């Protein structure tokens, strides 16, 4: 039971990293990243491959995150001087491209076989169950640091320009700000956070394979921030908790409704995610706690 609770908590903390990244992009800057899972996959595979070539985990995880951030650079440069729709389309294509690359380039990623046996973070000196607890503590610390950095970032002049870009890009431009460059930086930071979440996830479950990084995962993260309202740390945490609660809870759906197949269960879960996306935008665009005027269009 303790193991189960700590496992859930670890999932929540991993997803809050990704949700924070997306919230920086969408909630605070107004960028639409439909390719979250692509950056998560780059973080996971980047760190996973490095660690299998002898790089220690404490180094490979930040390296994976950095790779994810760097991968966002060309996408930002190409699309962010244009309208916002382009970024949405390009990031969607990017995440599919990453997945196909992972499947096809077997020399690097072992393709559909996936990469088993990635090192766990604290296993060397803490063993399995207390290793989980140590990881939990580490993730809490990482999340707190990221939250503090984010808060600093958002209150800094840089963050104020991001908010200006979100609320009125023309005005920000008229004040002489190179908005495309600011947006690119926000995109990179957010994507690096997604990659960080992916890297932690890879070393927590110790296996990575292309079937984990399907587009649905992107919309898991979207749901988390939409429910939370995308502009407050409390919202991000609560949104993620609700998401993980739903994902875990839906596993027990089969016990309640007998005679439902695995495919049907997956369809129901999928359907509910889609419905939640539609209904939050339609009826609750500010999220469960957000203010209506802030960043919710």
């Amino acid at each position, binding site marked *: 039971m303790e193991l189960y609770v700590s496992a859930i908590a670890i999932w929540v903390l991993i997803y809050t990293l990704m949700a924070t990244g997306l919230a920086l992009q969408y909630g605070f800057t107004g960028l639409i990243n439909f390719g979250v899972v692509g950056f998560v996959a780059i973080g996971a595979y980047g760190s996973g491959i490095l660690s299998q070539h002898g790089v220690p985990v404490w180094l490979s995880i930040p390296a994976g995150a950095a790779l994810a951030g760097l991968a966002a650079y060309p996408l930002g440069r190409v699309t962010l*001087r244009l309208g916002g*729709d382009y970024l949405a389309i*390009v990031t969607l*294509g990017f995440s599919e*491209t990453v997945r196909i690359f992972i499947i096809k380039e077997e020399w690097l990623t072992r393709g559909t076989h996936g990469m088993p046996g990635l090192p766990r973070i604290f296993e060397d000196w803490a063993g399995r169950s207390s290793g989980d607890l140590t990881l939990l503590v580490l993730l809490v610390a990482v999340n707190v640091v990221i939250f503090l950095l984010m808060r600093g970032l958002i209150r800094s002049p840089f963050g104020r320009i991001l908010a200006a870009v979100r609320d009125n890009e023309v005005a920000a431009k008229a004040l002489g700000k190179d908005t495309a460059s600011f947006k690119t930086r926000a995109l990179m930071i957010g994507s690096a956070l997604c990659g960080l979440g992916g890297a932690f996830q890879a070393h927590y479950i110790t296996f990575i394979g292309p079937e984990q990084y399907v587009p649905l995962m992107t919309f898991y993260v979207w749901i988390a921030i939409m429910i939370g309202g995308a502009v407050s740390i409390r919202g991000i945490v609560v949104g993620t908790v609700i998401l993980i609660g739903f994902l875990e809870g839906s596993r027990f759906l089969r016990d309640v409704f007998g005679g439902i197949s695995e495919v049907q269960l997956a369809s129901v879960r999928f359907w509910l995610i889609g419905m939640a996306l*539609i209904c939050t935008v*339609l009826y609750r665009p500010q999220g469960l706690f957000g203010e209506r005027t802030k960043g919710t269009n």
Partner: protein
Amino acid sequence: MIWVDLANATINGIVIGLLLALPALAVTLVFGIARFPNAATGDFMTFGAYTVVAAKSLLALPLAIGVAMACALTALLSLFFYWWVFRALVRRSPVASLIVSIGIALVVRSTITFFAGQSQYTIEVPLVRAWNFDGVRIVPTDLYIAGVAVTALVLTFCLLHLTPLGRRMRAVADNMELARASGINVGRVMITLFAIVGFYCGLGGVLIGIKAVVLPELGWELLLLLFAAVILGGIGSPLGAIIGMLVFSVSQEIASLWVGASYKIVFAFFLLLGVLLLRPQGILGKVRAVR
């Protein structure tokens, strides 16, 4: 020999390009008039393809009636989502519509997989021998497919350019507020738009289902290709969408002679980046820079 392969790939590319021009047209019309990239387009196509599968296997209807049913039902589906969702979002930022269209895509696809599962289906058509000109093969079925697609495309152009309704649609695309101020009923234009969109998605989905196999990811996997072709052709330009789609699918078929078919999406992605870098307004469009 290489010339024969090239010729076959070109023919195949033209047929696929023509039939995918239908959903590409749907994307570009919504992009131009309602001003958001409709990510549900692909899954509307999937819905159309599955309707025919259901009509043939459950109701044992002939193919032609199944196709008509698919077009009509997909149009109704599209209208339903306009009536429930997009209508309420007309005055909000296009971003809201874009995010919601993803939600619709997920809902439509998961409803299909709930009932039909993940397995593949085929839409069987009478087998006909291909005409063979020294190795260059033309399948008569492909000619029918191309014929249906061309007819639908010509009809759209007549609608847009020869009827008062088409003139109103173009007016709304140009400037919605001005159109409304001049007494155009924007709601009615939108209803026509989403009916056409559903019709074309349904038809395109059926045709691609006949040419390939019917899968739950049928339309979703084409979505990036559609967006890329629309951007290549110029957003909001119907002729551009057709040209873009033809250029795309011919070059894709030719490229897959060398790099393998699974890299199609990757190819589309890099071509898209190239277009955005070199000519973001596309072949026939205007720049939609940050406004």
